[in-house]
C-alpha cells in the first residue's frame, strides 16, 4: 500500500529501461555503503486514511479546546470568531498548494492578494510598506531590531518589560548573533514611564513597546515613541491588529515600525500556530525590510500586474549580506488575515474593538463588585486586564477549570511578585452571561 503515488510495476520497468539500470536500488549507487541505514525505518506500521482519522480524532478528544471550556485565556493568542469565508478561501487548492510566487504569470492570484494584504496592514498601522508576513509576533520583533541596528548603526535595543514575555525571549535569543545588547525598562503599575524610556533610549537602535501591553493596559504610546525619537532611536510598536479600529495607528504618533501577531485577525488558535507576524515600516526603511514584498508593475501589453520585488534585499541574491534569511513565510495565514479584515471592513473593525472593550470593562466591573481588585488600578485597558484573585493565580485557575471555566493566564509565571494576578481576556465570543459565570467561579 503506497499512498498518493501512481507508479505501477509496468511503469517502473519502462522507466528503469529508459534510464538504463536494472533496479531502483542501482539508482542509489552513489550513496556509500558506510552511510546506509541497511534496515527498515523503525516507525509504526502504515495506517489507512480511515485509521489515521480515527487515531487523530482520539488524540484531539484528549484536548480541551475553547468550546469545551468557557475560556478567558489570551496572553497573545485569542479566541476571536473566524468567519466561514476565511476557511473556505484558504481551502482553494490553487492558493493552498502553490509555492512562493516566483513565476508571476502563474501566480497573479497570490501576488495580488499579498499586495492587498500589504495595503491592509499599512492602513491599519499608518505605515508605508509592509512585508508579505513574518513567522509570528515574536520573530518580527527580532526582525525589527535587526532593521534598527542597521538603520542606526547602534548596538543596543530597549524593550519594555510590559511587552509579551515570549517576544522578549525571542529578541534575547537572536540578540547575540546580531551583536545587540537588550535593555529592559520595567513597568510602573502596569504601564511604562516615558521618562525611564527616554533615559534608556540614549544610544539605542530602537525602543520596542507593546500597546496595548501584555497586561492589556493602554500605554502612553505617543510619549514612548517621542522618548525614542528624541534619542534618535527608532520607535517600534507591537500592536494588536484588532485594536486598530479604536486605537491610533502607530504611524500617526511617530513610530518607525509597527509589528505584531496577526492571529487575532483571522487565524484559529491551533495550539500556537501556524499564524502570521506582520511587520510594516515608514518608507525610508523599505530597502532594509526583511522578507518578501510584492510590488505593482506592468506587463508586456501595458496591463497592471504584480511581482515579488526589491529582491536585492533577499538571501537568494544578497546571500550573506541579506537583510534576513527568511524564505518560507506565512502567506496563507496572512491571506486569512486579508479575508478577515475585508469581511470586517473599517466599520466592523471599530465595532469589534468597541464590543471587546465594553465586554472587558463589564467583566472588570463585575469582578470588582464581587470583591476582586484590578491588579493595576485606574489603568485603561483594551480587551484584556489583570485582576487580583486573592491567592495564587495558578490555584484559582485549577479550581475554576474544575468547574468548566478557564479564567485566564497566571501572570506570576513571567512576573515575580504578581503571583495573585490573573490575566483575563474577553473577546466578542464571550457574552454577559459567560462573564457572570466567570465571576461566580472566581468570587470566594
Amino acid at each position, binding site marked *: 500500500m503506497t499512498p498518493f*503515488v501512481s507508479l505501477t510495476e509496468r511503469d517502473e520497468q519502462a*522507466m*528503469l529501461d*529508459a534510464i538504463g539500470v536494472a533496479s531502483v536500488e542501482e*539508482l542509489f549507487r552513489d550513496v556509500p555503503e558506510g552511510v*546506509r541505514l541497511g534496515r527498515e*525505518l*523503525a516507525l509504526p506500521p502504515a495506517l489507512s486514511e480511515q485509521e489515521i*482519522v480515527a487515531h487523530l480524532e482520539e*488524540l484531539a478528544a484528549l*484536548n480541551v479546546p*475553547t468550546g469545551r471550556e468557557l475560556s478567558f485565556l489570551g496572553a*497573545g*493568542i485569542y479566541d476571536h470568531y473566524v468567519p466561514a*469565508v476565511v476557511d473556505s*478561501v484558504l*481551502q482553494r*487548492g490553487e*492558493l*493552498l*498548494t502553490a*509555492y*512562493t510566487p516566483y513565476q*508571476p504569470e502563474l*501566480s*497573479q492570484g497570490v501576488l*495580488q492578494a499579498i499586495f492587498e494584504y500589504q*495595503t491592509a496592514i499599512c492602513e491599519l498601522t499608518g505605515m*508605508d510598506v509592509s512585508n508579505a508576513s513574518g*513567522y509570528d509576533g515574536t*520573530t518580527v520583533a527580532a526582525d525589527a531590531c535587526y532593521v534598527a541596528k542597521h538603520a542606526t548603526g547602534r548596538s543596543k535595543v530597549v524593550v519594555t518589560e510590559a511587552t509579551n514575555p515570549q517576544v522578549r525571549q525571542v529578541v534575547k*535569543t537572536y540578540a547575540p*548573533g546580531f*551583536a545587540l545588547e537588550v535593555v529592559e525598562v520595567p513597568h510602573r503599575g502596569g504601564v511604562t514611564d516615558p521618562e525611564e524610556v527616554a533615559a534608556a533610549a540614549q544610544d539605542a537602535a530602537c525602543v520596542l513597546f507593546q500597546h496595548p501591553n501584555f497586561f492589556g493596559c*493602554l500605554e502612553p504610546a*505617543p510619549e514612548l515613541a517621542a522618548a525614542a525619537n528624541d534619542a534618535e532611536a527608532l520607535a517600534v510598536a507591537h500592536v494588536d491588529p484588532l485594536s486598530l*479600529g479604536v486605537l491610533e495607528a502607530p504611524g500617526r504618533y511617530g513610530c518607525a515600525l509597527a509589528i505584531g501577531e496577526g492571529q487575532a485577525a483571522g487565524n484559529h*488558535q491551533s495550539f*500556537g*500556530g*501556524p499564524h502570521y507576524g506582520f511587520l510594516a515600516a515608514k518608507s525610508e526603511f523599505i530597502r532594509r525590510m526583511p522578507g518578501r514584498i510584492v510590488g*505593482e*508593475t*506592468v*506587463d*508586456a501589453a501595458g496591463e*497592471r500586474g504584480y511581482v515579488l*520585488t526589491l529582491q536585492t534585499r533577499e538571501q537568494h*541574491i544578497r546571500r550573506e549580506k541579506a537583510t*534576513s534569511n527568511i*524564505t*518560507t513565510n506565512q502567506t*496563507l495565514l496572512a491571506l486569512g488575515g486579508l479575508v478577515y479584515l*475585508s469581511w*470586517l*471592513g*473599517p466599520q466592523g473593525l471599530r465595532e469589534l474593538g*468597541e464590543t471587546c472593550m465594553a465586554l472587558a*470593562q463589564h467583566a472588570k466591573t463585575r469582578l470588582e463588585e464581587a470583591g476582586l481588585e484590578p491588579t493595576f488600578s485606574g489603568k485603561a485597558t483594551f480587551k484584556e486586564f489583570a485582576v487580583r484573585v486573592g491567592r495564587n493565580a495558578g490555584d484559582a485557575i485549577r479550581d475554576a477549570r474544575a468547574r468548566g471555566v478557564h479564567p485566564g*493566564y497566571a501572570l506570576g509565571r513571567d512576573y515575580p511578585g504578581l503571583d495573585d494576578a490573573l490575566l483575563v481576556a474577553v473577546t466578542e465570543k464571550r457574552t454577559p452571561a459567560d462573564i457572570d459565570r466567570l465571576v461566580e467561579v472566581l468570587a470566594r
Partner: protein
Amino acid sequence: MKLIYEKSQAGRTGYTLPRHDLPRAEVPEALRRGDPPRLPELAEPELVRHFTELSTRNFGIDTGFYPLGSCTMKYNPRVNERLAALPGFRDLHPLQEEDGAQGALALMWHLQEALIEIAGLHACSLQPAAGSQGELTGLMLMRAYFAERGEDERRRKIVIPDTAHGTNPASVTMAGYELTPVKTDPRGNIDVEDLRARVDEHTAGLMLTNPSTLGLFDEHIEEIAKVFHDVGALMYYDGANLNAVCGISRPGDMGFDIVHINLHKTFSQPHGGGGPGGGPIVVRERLEPYLPAPQVIRDVDDFFLDYDRPKSIGKVRGFTGPFGVFVRSYAFIRMWGPELRCMSEIAVLNANYLLARLRDAYDLPYDRLCMHEFVVSARRLKREHGATALDVAKRLMDYGFHPPTVYFPLVVPEALMIEPTETEPKEILDEFCDAMLAIAREAADSPELLKEAPHDRPVKRLDEVRAAKRAIVRYRFEDHPDVGDGPVEPRQLEAQKGA
C-alpha cells in the same frame, strides 16, 4: 482584474457581530484612532467572488505538475486538512494547561520520535517555523555548544559550498558567524582538497545539503565528516532534500550533528503560496541541552512541556511551533509508516527518468545518476539560439506546466532545476518531457515562441525592473499612480526563481 479596494463602496458592510446592551468603554482621547483604516467595504457575496477569481489566477500542485526544484512540490493529502481542522486541535489555546492538551503534546512527542528516527539522531525541537529558522537555530546551538567549551571566541567560521541555498550564508551572518566558501569539484561533490585547506581550529562547522542542490549525493561524505570531526567542528544538515533519502541514508549516519527538516517539503504541509512551513531540528545527544525551550517530554503515559532547561539557547518562536503543520506531517508519516523508503525511491526513480529523457536536448553539467532532482543547463540554447533558461520556463507555462527552479544553483549557468517528486504519474512525466523537447526544437525553429511566452496567462511577462524602481508596494487610493502608458519591453531579472 480590480483590486479589492477598487470594488469597495463606502458604507457597504459584510460582517455580522453580536450586540450587547452594555455601557461603552471609552478610549482616552490621546490614544483614540483618528482616520479609520481604509479597509475594503464589501458584502460577503462579492468578497467570495473576489478571492475565487484570485484563485483562478493562480497555479498550485492541485492545478498541475510543479517541478520546482528544491521545493518538493508533492501532492498534499486532503485528509490532512480535515485533521488539522478538528476542533480539538484547531481551537486549542497554546497556553492551555498540560492536562488539557495531552492529545496535542502526545502528537508532538510522537512526531519528534519519528523525525529522530528518520534523521538518525537523538533529540528534536519542533519550534523553528521554517527551514531558514531551523538553520539559524542550529547555528545558535553551535555557538552555545562551543561557548560552554570556551571555544566560541576562536571558532568563528562556518564552511558552506558554493552550491548552497542563499539562506545558508544569510543564516551564518545572522548568527554572528563568518562564511568560508568551499568549491565544488568536477563531479559535483565538495572539493575535498579545497575543503582541507579551509578547515582548521577556527572552524565551528559545516552547513551542507546532501544530496546537494545539484541533486547529487556527495560521494565523499564520510571523508568530509572526518575532516570536520577531526578538528572538533560540528556538521549541519540542510534537510531541504530529505525527500531523496528517507529510510535509505540518514543524516546522523552520514556524520551530521544537527539537521533541519522542512515539513512543507518532505512531509506534505501545503506551502500556501509562500508558507506556512515547519523547520524542526534534530540533534545529536551532546547538543540536546541547548535546544530551545520548552521541550515536549514524556513520563510514562503523560506528556509535559519542560521549561527547566538552563543551558537552552532560549526561544526562537512563540509557544511550541506551528502545531497545525505538525498534525499534517504526523498524519503523512503515519500513513506511509516504514514504507517511507518507497516514497524516496519513487521520487528518485521519477527524477532519473526525466533526466534520461532530457539529457540530450539540454546540457548536463555533471554526468551522473541523480537523486530526487537534477539540474540541466540551457546554455547551449542560449549560445546557439539566444533562448535563456527563463524563456524555457515561460514557454513551459504554455504547455500547462509550472516551470522548474531557474538560475539556481549559482554554479550552473542557465540552470533549470527539476524535481518531480514521487506523486507524479508516468504520463505526466512524459508529457513534461515532450514539452521540454518540443521547446528545445522551438528554440531553434521559432525562438519568438519562447521569447513571447507565456501566451495565454492572465498577464504577459512583467517588468520586474520597473517594479523595483517604482516600489509601488501598496494601493494608494485616490493618489494611486497610473500603471503606465501602453506596451513595454518587460525587463526581468535573470536571477533565481524558485527554491
